[in-house]
């Protein structure tokens, strides 16, 4: 039996208030008024699809060992790198390299489900496969996308042992129906008229595909307990369900009011949402539309209730901070030529040879543990840092990303350049031993205190725009 064995999600902390966006833009686009409700997730300046996918993957692997993973599929339409395996960065961040096949899947909003199908098929022989999907789509100022999109990620571990949602079947059709596109030379989507997309696209392509999938699974529409279908038009999923005999009560909420549409990740984000609620015996159908359709049908098993707790979508959704400053949203997305000052001019060139040598330290947050005195330290060094030891070549690698730490000292620095001043940073200490001066993220004045518990999170520290956008990643501390 192949299926999903674990799930995880990630949602950035900030939630952009849509009314605030509308208020800034209504002089130009009063027609957006209908969308000015609720909030959308908003990536912090140091988050992109890789960092969000790493967080979702860590959430998913709460119950499983990363080193057992044999394949990683990473779906996105906003991979930070065009040529550099984005999925491989996730692997390194999870400290998995050997015996790992890493693959990026993109090019369509159904990339998430395509990755899931590939992942399930890859794990049929028992090789645990991690499927991560994340998107951080840009949208033009005063566009509907700016209001509708959200940033987020989901991750699913596929395998054959302790399956919580058995794959009943899957079906795909591929046809070049261009409802929207994003060319190589643009950061933004260009879309056609919604009525045409609904009538000629969804209505004519989706129902036959669902019927074919149901037939292949020997199921009827009424057998589906949870119907998942992302769409920028909220009425469409209900309409599709009705056309194929799936009950209206089965249609899952699109999470538009609180999260927004997370692009290629959204079908999987909604799947995690459904899995959190599902009971043994429930049947889940996932439909993703984008130059064709992917359809997957799962049946939830009794194993689901045994899955150890994790943050999941609900946990990350509960960690929330409202953002009403639309200017900040624009600045974080490099949509505002803000005066960053001379301190932002420092060259951010990365020595790739250094990064390679130190990748376990930088991407994996791997420190050392001295075999002689037992002291944990970061970074791992040739001579033990313990003043009463100083043993040479005595340290074993010691992964620290998953350890909770606390603040020993900190500051809020208004002098250094930060896209989100003041810059919070401080000395963090790990109870097992080890400390370093770390940048903080997702931090507010009232949260950062001496002794505060922090959690390490994989983030971007710099973007080398001088060289076409080489993102430097490292770990930062965020309040628990």
């Amino acid at each position, binding site marked *: 039996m192949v299926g999903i064995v674990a799930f995880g999600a990630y949602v950035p902390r900030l939630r952009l208030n849509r009314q605030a966006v509308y208020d800034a833009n209504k002089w130009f686009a009063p027609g957006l008024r209908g969308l000015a409700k609720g909030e959308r997730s908003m990536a912090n300046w140091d988050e992109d699809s890789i960092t969000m996918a790493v967080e979702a993957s860590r959430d998913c692997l709460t119950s499983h060992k990363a080193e057992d993973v044999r394949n990683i599929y990473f779906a996105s339409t906003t991979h930070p790198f065009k040529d550099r395996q984005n999925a491989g960065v996730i692997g390194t961040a999870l400290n998995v390299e050997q015996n790992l096949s890493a693959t990026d899947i993109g090019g369509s909003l159904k990339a998430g489900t395509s990755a899931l199908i590939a992942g399930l098929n890859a794990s049929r022989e028992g090789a645990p496969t991690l499927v991560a999907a994340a998107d951080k789509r840009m949208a033009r100022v005063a566009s509907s996308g700016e209001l509708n999109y959200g940033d987020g990620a989901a991750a699913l571990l596929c395998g054959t042992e302790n399956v919580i949602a058995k794959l009943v079947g899957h079906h795909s059709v591929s046809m070049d129906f261009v409802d929207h596109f994003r060319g190589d030379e643009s950061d933004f989507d260009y879309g056609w008229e919604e009525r045409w997309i609904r009538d000629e696209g969804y209505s004519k392509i989706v129902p036959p595909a669902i019927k074919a999938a149901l037939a292949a699974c020997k199921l009827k529409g009424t057998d589906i307990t949870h119907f998942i279908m992302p769409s920028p038009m909220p009425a469409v999923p209900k309409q599709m369900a009705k056309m194929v005999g799936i009950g209206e009560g089965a249609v899952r909420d699109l999470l538009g009011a609180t999260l927004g549409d997370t692009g290629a990740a959204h079908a999987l984000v909604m799947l995690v949402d459904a899995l959190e609620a599902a009971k043994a015996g429930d049947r889940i159908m996932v439909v993703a539309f984008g130059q064709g359709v992917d359809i997957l049908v799962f049946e939830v098993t009794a194993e689901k209730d045994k899955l150890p707790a994790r943050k999941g979508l609900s946990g990350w959704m509960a960690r929330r901070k409202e953002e009403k400053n639309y200017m900040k949203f624009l600045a974080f997305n490099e949509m505002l030529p803000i005066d960053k000052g001379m301190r932002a001019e420092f060259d951010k060139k990365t020595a790739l040879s250094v990064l390679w040598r130190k990748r376990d330290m930088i991407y994996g947050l791997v420190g050392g543990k001295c075999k002689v005195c037992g002291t944990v330290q*970061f970074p791992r060094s040739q001579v033990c840092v313990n*003043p009463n030891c100083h043993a040479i070549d005595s340290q074993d690698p010691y992964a620290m990303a998953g350890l909770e730490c606390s603040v020993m000292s900190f500051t809020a620095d*208004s002098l250094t*350049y930060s896209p989100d001043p003041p810059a919070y940073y401080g000395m963090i200490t790990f109870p097992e031993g080890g400390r370093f001066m770390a940048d903080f993220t997702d931090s507010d004045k009232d949260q950062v205190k001496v002794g505060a518990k922090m959690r390490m999170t994989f983030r971007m520290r710099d973007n080398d725009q001088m060289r076409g956008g080489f993102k430097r990643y490292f770990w930062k501390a965020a309040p628990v």
Partner: protein
Amino acid sequence: MARGIKDKVAILGMGCSKFGERWDSGAEELMLEAYKECLKDAGIDQNQLQAAWFSTAIDEVHVGKSGIPLSTTLRLPNIPVTHVENMCASGTEAFRGACYAVASGAADFALALGVEKLKDTGYGGLPGGRGGPLQVLWNANGTAPGNFAQLATAYMTAHGVSGEDLKRAIGHVSWKSHQNGAKNPKAHLQKAVEMDTILNAPMIASPLGLFDCCGVSDGAAAAIVTTPEIAKALGKKDIVSVKALQLSVSNGSESGHNSWDGSYFHTTRIASKKAYEEAGIKNPRDEVSMFEVHDCFSVTELVTMEDLHISETGKGWKDVLDGFYDADGKIPCQIDGGLKCFGHPIGASGLRMLYEMYLQLQGKAGPRQLANPRIGMTHNLGGAPRENISSVAIVGRYE
């Protein structure tokens, strides 16, 4: 312990440029300004110099590397010139090199000169940069004020000092230095400042406000050293000799091992203890007449006075508020205005501190002259609380 260099080296002459935003001068002009005064004071001919040590810390924004800029600017007689860099402690490092040359007998006359020209960067504060190709991949996006602000956070935590009490104490540190700086015509900032202004200044890196941070200045300072015997032979009176020179450099235990709580300078405790031993000082609180310490930030000075074993650990803030370190207090500290007001041209600062001690010991400090000082101590720190170079020098009358 080694025999040390107590009384083996005398300061023959010193010079110091006007510190400040020297828009009129480059590093070369500043060097010459300090050197001319120094050479005249020493009363020797340039051709008698046998070795030189040259300190700059951020040379990439002014003179560049090596000993050549010093040799070329002063047209030195093709003697050895060693460029030294040990962050903000570079000035004392240059002095140490020159002193060791004389103490060893390798040179009869040695020059130490430090300079920093910082105000050609186009922005306020120290020039940025986070280190080498590995450091930039993981070091926190910090600044000097941010690093030293954490000393304040940790100090409050370690000793249960309230934010309000600490803010008042470090405010007093800066207030006192402004009082002193107002009497120093070479100082960058020569204006006394009200306590209210200090306490209500904009925050730079919490809890440090604008007045908790020293000036970013251009300047140079120089010393020519010889042996006390030669100084005497040259007819010098009121000879000032070196009693101790000690340096302690972090080895990563503060930044990487959980035994350090962030509230003190591990290295300063070590360097000062060794210096008292070298100088034969048993009870520094009674024996040292005056201090110039590395008040890059007000809290640095406060904590340093504990680590120099003058104030009791955790009680330094009370001594500060009691006026113990004021110009009319028991041991005046930063009588020339300190880094806070005299200014902080990195490579020159250690030598500038010695310049004030030298003037005071010779009774040449003008309106800020202290009554009969006998022993002066400088403390010159490079780096951040978690990783630093702490250098101390003790000088005094040669008796």
